[in-house]
């Protein structure tokens, strides 16, 4: 029981971190960034290459992976999303293709085999019969700090409010002096950075392999559809629902069920709440 509670909270923290970058783009830019999982792959491999191949200090590896994620986010906005202005289907198709291209590129550079990442923070602790690795504990804590930070940023700073304003009414934001283009670019940068960071933690929690973008994408899509829809607190809540569902199903029923319930949940919610995706979509 304690095991499930603790694992549930830790995994949910990681899922929230995975989802928040995706929901941010959806709420501010109204784009389903299906290449979002590619940030995680790129972040994970960048970290692997920097810290385990080149031997840089881990923290430097993490930071450079984050910077790379932000740069790729900005490039994607400027090179693909902005030129395709408003054509959501085109954006979604091209981002999905991009994810596949990234996967192929990774195979080319690093090979097909999965890699084991050393834990970013090593060590294990036992809490009431539950095994807690410091690695996932760090991931969960970092995730909470980031989500709370993001929440405070949106509520209490001019820039954060401007992001929220763009998510609610682009014209209204523009005539208030906010440049929607700038805000979108900022969102893509934040999203890329968070995706890359989530990728480092996710890879060190599971494994690093070229197809690693699919599972996180499903988690992120689930969070958007189940109702987080870009709200930061909603993201945290839904990530916990999904995280606990997964821990409970894999530890009480069968480990093979990992991910299955999440996908079933997406379908069920789509059926009973078909406007889920297009409901309220603010930060």
């Amino acid at each position, binding site marked *: 029981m304690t095991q499930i509670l603790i694992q549930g909270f830790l995994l949910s923290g990681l899922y929230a971190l995975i989802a928040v970058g995706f929901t941010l783009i959806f709420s501010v830019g109204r784009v389903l960034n299906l290449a979002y999982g590619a940030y995680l792959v790129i972040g994970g491999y960048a970290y692997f290459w920097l810290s385990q191949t080149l031997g840089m200090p881990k923290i430097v590896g993490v930071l450079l992976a984050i910077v790379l994620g932000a740069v790729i986010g900005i490039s994607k906005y400027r090179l693909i999303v902005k030129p395709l202005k408003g054509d959501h289907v085109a954006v979604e198709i091209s981002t999905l293709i991009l994810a596949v291209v990234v996967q192929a590129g990774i195979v080319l550079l690093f090979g097909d085999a999965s890699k084991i990442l050393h834990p970013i923070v090593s060590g294990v602790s036992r809490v009431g019969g539950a095994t807690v690795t410091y690695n996932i504990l760090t991931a969960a804590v970092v995730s909470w700090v980031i989500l709370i930070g993001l929440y405070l940023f949106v509520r209490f700073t001019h820039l954060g*409010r401007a992001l929220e304003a763009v998510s609610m009414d682009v*014209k209204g*934001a523009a*005539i208030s*002096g*906010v*440049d929607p283009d700038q805000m979108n670019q900022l969102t893509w940068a934040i999203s890329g950075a968070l995706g890359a960071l989530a990728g480092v933690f996710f890879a060190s929690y599971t494994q690093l392999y070229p197809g690693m973008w699919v599972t996180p994408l499903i988690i992120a899509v689930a969070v958007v559809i189940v109702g987080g829809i870009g709200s930061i607190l909603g993201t945290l809540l839904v990530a916990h629902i999904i995280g606990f569902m997964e821990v409970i199903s894999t530890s009480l029923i069968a480990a093979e069920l990992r991910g299955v319930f999440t996908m079933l949940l997406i379908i069920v919610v789509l059926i009973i709440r078909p406007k889920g995706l297009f409901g309220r979509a*603010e930060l």
Partner: protein
Amino acid sequence: MALLDIDKLSAFYGKAQALQDVSLSIAEGDIVALIGTNGAGKSTLLDSIMGQVTVSGDIRLKGESLVGKPTSKIVAAGVGYAPERANLFAHMSVRNNLLVGAYTARDNIADNLSRVENLFPVLAERAGQETSTQSGGERQMVSIGRALMTNPSILLVDEPTIGLAPKVFNDIAEALRRLNAETGLTILITEQNVNFALTLARHIHVMETGRIRVSGTADELREDAALAEAYFGH
């Protein structure tokens, strides 16, 4: 020199032309009304000033051209806008809606806020309410208030009184009058209600199918019965 100069302005939605060679200038401290029926091009003209429509011709604020600038820069240059559909941030509080307006005018937020709340006391009472739950009149006040928070030298208001009950209608008219009288703010409104335009504005331009047909002072137009007949139908 006029505060705002519009020079041979044409506006296009794709290939459709919504404004044709519109020229007018607005002096500092004036209240000007654009009147015209549905589809005359009133909102298009205001949107064009804000850089939201593709245009040819020129628009100058204090001699500086606004054409081709992004909307955010036009706001920063001193144009405040309360558009036709308000475009409020529906799930933000009244206060936060106003604060977004201060994005480019952060130096005197407290002063601007108290000016707005003094003008529309209900916005102070309802500071925490989400604008999605507000009445049409309150939303119009938030919209004008948000525009004032940008610290504008000219305020554009698109049909400020459309669909409002007489009491609220008067409150808003009075607020615009006070703004102009007490702070000298230059105001450009659009109206379909000719009588209202005649009581509020000093200069009036009558628009029809994308062109300005007649321009004059409110007094001139009021006395010109033929014009009233032709353009206002009464």
